[in-house]
């Protein structure tokens, strides 16, 4: 196997991959005087175009990706990324638009921003959306800031945010960044929010409850209306983490269930690609009560067209430059238009079908901590396999040998040794069956040949990596010829 070097290791003086036209204006040699200039960029690569193409092509080939196979990653919604969306988002009219160009010269962009906000409002049952947040976590922060601004306006921002013990880590860290203290709410035996614990903790000191629905166990918070009542009765807000929206599209709208503010992950529910870690987009939707506080600018539509409205005295301000990850929004709109209303509803129907098919197929092989019906994802654990000294990590690494990416592991924290599985609606039955078969084989191997799991993966480009040394003695960039 060719092990791909770092670009710096094949770099050498004299190689080049790009040529610029001759400078067509006079040189201003004196103008450079007095400016701190660099002599050269030490160790910066000098390689040929062929070397770059081969380097990145070969590196791409050691990446697993949705285009290759199944990602059963719970709460990540790794659905297929349609290629027509790439084509739409690459149109020169979009990519070469400068964000500060005169409004009448960018009406197409403004229209798209307005339409995607309106479409999300319709799907989520909210009154308005901002596309500014660049990812789910930034959306959460934005949502919490909106709540805080509104409460401050009313005279008291309050001190506490309630978060279920099954929540994603971004929830408490976003609340904290907003100046709130976090109070954990317990889940009950069924895996949903314990209403008594919520009532006990819901005081006039609490600004909001951050709820994921369905929750990270894949269980629908069927008491959501009651939850909303408890929170609203004490003047608090109900924030919904929309990461699991894939189970609800066209079936149920969070806004209809009492949610005041929600963030959506376009790179989950709306098929925009994960890109190996972004760019994503985390639009935030609100009910009218929070609308005045939205980040500025908002897009307005009038008779003559679309315009940017900066006259927003109560806005929380900006969370980033310009308008958000615009081209990601373009992809999401293309997706919504491709599917249409029936297609969007089908997302939830088939996502839930696929997940329950997996659940039913594996519930004798792996332990399911919670009995409750689940929607688009389910959470197994390594409890049965622990008897043979096998952990969820070993199961995950062995799956790689079967050509499948491991599921989400060790989350939510309330299920020790968790394996969270979300197939999404785009998987074929054949791929689902291959996954099920692999999991069954692994359960058998855990019993009969545990060593195979403990030393997995065996056939990947690299095998198990020493993450301990990586953290103890971090090497975070190429150190130059000293290391070769």
């Amino acid at each position, binding site marked *: 196997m060719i092990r791909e070097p770092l670009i710096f290791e094949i770099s050498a003086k004299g190689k080049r991959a790009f040529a*610029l036209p001759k*400078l067509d204006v006079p040189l201003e040699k004196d103008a450079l005087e007095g400016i701190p*200039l*660099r002599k050269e*960029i030490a160790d*910066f690569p000098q*390689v040929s175009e062929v070397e770059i193409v081969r380097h990145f092509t070969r*590196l791409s080939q050691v990446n*697993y*990706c949705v285009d290759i196979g199944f990602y059963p990653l719970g709460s990540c919604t790794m659905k297929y990324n349609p290629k*027509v969306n790439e084509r739409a988002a690459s149109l*020169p009219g979009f990519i*070469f638009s*400068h964000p500060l*160009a005169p409004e009448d*010269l960018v009406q197409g*962009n403004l229209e798209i921003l307005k339409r995607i906000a309106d479409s999300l409002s*319709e*799907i989520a049952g909210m009154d308005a959306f901002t596309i500014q947040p660049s*990812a789910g*976590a930034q959306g959460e922060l934005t949502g919490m800031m909106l709540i*805080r601004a509104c409460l401050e306006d009313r005279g008291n921002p309050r001190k506490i945010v309630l978060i279920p013990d099954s929540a994603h*880590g*971004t929830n408490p*860290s976003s609340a904290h*960044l907003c100046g709130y203290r*976090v109070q954990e709410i317990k889940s009950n035996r069924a895996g949903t929010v314990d209403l008594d614990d919520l009532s006990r903790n819901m005081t006039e000191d609490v600004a909001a409850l951050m709820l994921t629905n369905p929750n990270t166990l894949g269980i629908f918070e069927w008491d*959501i209306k009651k939850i909303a009542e408890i929170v609203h009765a004490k003047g608090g807000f109900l924030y919904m983490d929309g990461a699991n929206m894939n189970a609800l599209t066209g*079936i*149920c709208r969070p806004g209809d269930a009492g949610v005041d503010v929600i963030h959506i992950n376009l790179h989950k529910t709306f098929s925009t*690609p994960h*890109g*190996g*870690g*972004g760019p994503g987009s985390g639009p935030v939707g609100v009910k009218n009560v929070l609308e005045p506080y939205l980040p500025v600018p908002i897009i307005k539509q009038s008779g003559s067209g679309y315009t940017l409205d900066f006259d927003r005295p109560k806005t929380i*301000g900006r969370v*980033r*430059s*310009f*308008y958000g*990850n*615009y*081209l*990601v929004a373009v992809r999401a709109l293309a997706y919504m*238009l491709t599917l249409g*209303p029936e297609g969007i509803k089908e997302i939830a129907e088939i996502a*839930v079908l696929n997940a329950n*098919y997996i659940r*039913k197929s594996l519930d004798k092989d792996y332990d399911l901590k919670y009995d409750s019906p689940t*929607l688009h994802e389910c959470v197994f654990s390594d409890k049965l396999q622990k008897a043979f000294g096998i952990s969820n990590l070993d199961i995950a690494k062995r799956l790689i040998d079967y050509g499948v990416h*491991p599921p989400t592991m060790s989350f939510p924290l309330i299920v020790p040794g968790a394996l969270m599985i979300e197939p999404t609606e785009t998987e*074929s039955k054949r791929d689902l069956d291959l996954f099920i078969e692999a999991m069954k084989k692994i359960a058998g191997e855990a019993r009969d040949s545990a060593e195979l799991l403990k030393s997995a993966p065996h056939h990947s480009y*690299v*095998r198990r*990596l*020493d993450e301990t040394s990586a953290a103890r003695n971090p*090497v*975070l*960039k*190429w150190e130059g010829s000293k290391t070769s």
Partner: protein
Amino acid sequence: MSYISLSDQDKKEMLARIGISTTEELFCCFPDEIRLKRGLRLPAAMPEPELIWHFEALAAKNAAARYPSFLGAGSYVHFIPSIVDCLAARGEFVTPYTPYQPEVSQGTLQVVFEYQTLICQLTGMDVANASLYDGASAAAEAVLMAHRLNGRARVLVARSIHPHYRETIRTYTKNVGVTLDGIRAGETGAIDLDELAKKLDQDVAAVIVQSPNFFGCIENLEKIGQLAHDRQALLIATVAEAASLGILEAPGKLGADLVCGEAQSFGLPPSFGGPSLGFMGCRKEFVRQLPGRIAGQTKDVDGNRGFVLTLSTREQHIRREKATSNICTNQALCAVRATIYLETMGQNGLKEMALHNFHKAHYAADRLARLKGVRKKFSGKFFNEFVLEFPKSIQGLNGYLKGKGIIGGLDLGSFYPELGNCGLFCVTEVHKKDEIDGLVRAIEEGLR
């Protein structure tokens, strides 16, 4: 059109295994009162040809994308070599998940490791993260990081930093006990060093400046760093136009403790503002407070080199409310593009491109400043952006230019009331000499 891959037979078999007869039964736990009882009020499904025609029509409404433009102000047009689009479009870079399972993500991880190295080389920092959302949020994260590092509660913010960056810093620091104090720009367009010296005291966590700043002027980072360090405050240098790093000395070599900014100039088109590419680097001793994902080098059980996400205990999925930041998804694919771009431009290409920016911008500034009624507003040195002052607001002039199919400089009146008659112009390596000459001619006519 949908992306469902199940046949009718598949659905039958799957329903049978679950023990139900329709998918509707899967939603039985939903209280009836919150079920949506109507179809979604959205446009009907568009098959692909219709969809593409629809988006082409929308794109055609963006004349701005076709006109030569002299706008900069945080979003820059640079030439993107063909191999960037071609390689970055590969499904293996576009469609993978975050590299939490390193054994099957070595492509992304190695590229990120190269990206981190390149950012360190360009900025003079010891460590860089795998990306943040954009330059504005990167600046906000840097301010929060400085506060965590020395516990001090005040940060001095140059008014010559991009308005969006300053607004974002304000939003992020509002609820965490950090106060911001503005420092104005002086006659030269660069930060007023006297006011800075006066306001620096033991309560100041950091000074944050942008170089080249929003007016295009290059700041004296060395002097600013000295003033800050004399009071044990940190210097945060933010870079909105990353192309400037092709010729300007690395901020780390001039005394910066944290360097952050926007790398959109490295291989990303303007894209109406996003996606973008925030970057951040710091000195070695600060690494545990650096936000964002970081890739590190290690070995596998066979002794082969490999890369992993590391120092994860800083992050939200482990530290939760005590995390250095709440960031999860970042801008990885944009970092891949930037890496390809930088490796393609290489040592010499990057420098040459930056010099083209410099000389073309100076040519434009000279010719424009010679027009009657026009003068360069600031005397400071600049890279590829400059401010010109006109007899009155350039709103009318820009309207005239628009009629000629040219997008002129940014009307600064809406951002800085004291610069109501000024325009911010940007010239890069993509502006041909006759386009610049065309701008000069058109402005001359427009001013008559």
